[in-house]
């Protein structure tokens, strides 16, 4: 109703009546299918393990057991304690990496020669498995929180710097010219044209860094650490408590989805002026 009132009168007069059922279906088909998917998958999971007994519960615990394992981990405080540790490590590494990444990106993107010389290296770093450094970092920093933070840090720096540099160096040159015409000096040009232009790119880099930094966190915790969510995953498998494993994985998934959608929302807001032109 509200959507059609925006349209010019002449068109509205011509609107054909769509059956209510069809209109409802068209609007809700996506969420509907998602819910059906979820129900089918959980039922199939339950069926395979509990009814048909095709898989031993040891390997794949039924949904109910996962739920009770999660409740148990929460009640004992084990989950919360490890979650807090993981969050801390991730936060330090991510914030430091994001800050340095933006600075590095601005530096690389603003100076043409530096840009030409360092972009290939940044691209190479982005393309390579940085987590392979984990054992070496552990050898350098010992066991504990430090190697985890460092791994998160380097997994963040590279995408943030790469995206920021792409943004700064790609400023529309006619905008810079326009700025100069209106009397903007060097610093003003930077503050009023280059930085606003770059902001969505930097946010985009931070968004790209969420999955990579979480991979860094997981690898750090799964291999070199007795604490944190990653360590819980490894130890619970070793103790054949797969119900706990899956519970922790689910918590981790929720965590990463929340972070990603948070950054997505920020990116949408900050980059509004970029997106507006695409539909029309």
């Amino acid at each position, binding site marked *: 109703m509200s959507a059609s009132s*925006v*349209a*010019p009168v*002449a068109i509205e007069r011509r609107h054909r009546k769509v059956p209510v059922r069809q209109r409802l279906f*068209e609007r809700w088909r996506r969420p509907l299918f998602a819910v059906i998917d979820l129900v089918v998958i959980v039922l199939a999971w339950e069926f395979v393990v509990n009814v048909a007994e095709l898989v031993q519960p040891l390997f794949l615990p039924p949904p109910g057991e996962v739920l009770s394992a999660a409740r148990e981990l929460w009640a004992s405080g084990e989950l919360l304690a490890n979650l807090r540790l993981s969050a801390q490590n991730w936060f330090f590494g991510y914030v430091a990496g994001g800050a340095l990444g933006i600075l590095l990106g601005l530096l690389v993107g603003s100076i043409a020669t530096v840009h030409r010389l360092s972009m290939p290296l940044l691209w190479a770093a982005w393309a390579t498995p940085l987590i392979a450094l984990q054992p070496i970092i552990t050898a350098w920093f010992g066991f504990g929180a430090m190697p985890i933070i460092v791994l998160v840090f380097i997994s963040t720096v590279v995408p943030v710097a790469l995206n920021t540099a792409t943004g700064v160096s790609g400023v529309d040159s006619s905008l810079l010219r326009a700025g100069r015409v209106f009397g903007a000096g060097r610093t003003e040009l930077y503050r009023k044209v280059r930085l606003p232009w770059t902001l969505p790119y930097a946010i985009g880099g931070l968004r790209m860094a969420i999955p990579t930094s979480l991979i860094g966190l997981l690898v750090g915790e799964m291999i070199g650490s007795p604490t944190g969510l990653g360590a819980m995953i490894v130890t619970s498998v070793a103790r054949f408590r797969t119900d706990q494993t899956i519970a922790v994985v689910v918590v981790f998934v929720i965590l990463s989805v929340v972070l990603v959608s948070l950054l997505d929302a920020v990116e949408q807001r900050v980059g509004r002026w970029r997106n507006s032109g695409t539909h029309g």
Partner: protein
Amino acid sequence: MPMPTDHRPGTTPDAEPAAPLEPAPVVPLISVRDLSVEYRVSRTNSWLMAVADVNLDVHEGEFLTVLGSSGCGKTTVMNTIAGLVQPTEGEVLIDGRRVTGPGPDRAVVFQDYALLPWRTVVDNIRFGLEMQPGRRRADWRAQVADAIRLVGLDGFEDSYPRELSGGMQQRVGLARALVAEPRILLMDEPLGAVDALTREVMRAELERVITATGKTVVFITHSIDEAIVLGDRVAVFGAHPGRVLEILPVDLPRPRSEQGVMAQPGFVELRDHLWGVLQGDARSASRGVAGS
């Protein structure tokens, strides 16, 4: 299924046939009857009336230009004739037979050229032949070569579309259409994306090539000059929803794309008239929106 062929005088603005045609009822090659088309707008989940109650006849060998502002639904009418869009109401008849899909009797030249970027000029032109099962492969080469010569693409046979200017790309689009040997040529603002100078040149070329082939043409444009220069008749379209405002014949001698033709009194008179019709529609449309 035999269809009634009478004009039903009084229901359409073009009830009086164009002057050079015989007054006796002739089966029009293209006949658009009471055509309405609606689209579903997925963003708002509502239906949009693009075209309403359009009636249009085009006779064999005629060059009809369809004039209207952008977004007035004239492309939709053309897509319906091409068989790319199904009518919501009404129908399109070719030679008295109802259109249900694309066919070899019709070819389209697109505004954005729509050339396959991974094919060279020759291979792009050949595309229409490839798709028609009845064609003999042995003849392809000669047919493509003829088309290339006709549109003036000699020397660019092995270029890729991206290496060509807009005007040259549209020559490829025209050659691709001609080589398919359709009875009807549908052209959707073929010069819309071409720069102004090239546009003048191409307009003259089009008049030359198409009058030479004697094809039936439906030509969509938003340029009043172009509509007059090229058309035997001009159909003026109004917007929101798209509908025929007026159809009028152009009785100017050909070739018209020469210098001086545009300064003739008949030309100027027509241009003023068409301009007035379009202005009137635009003004009433904007008043309608403001009043809501």
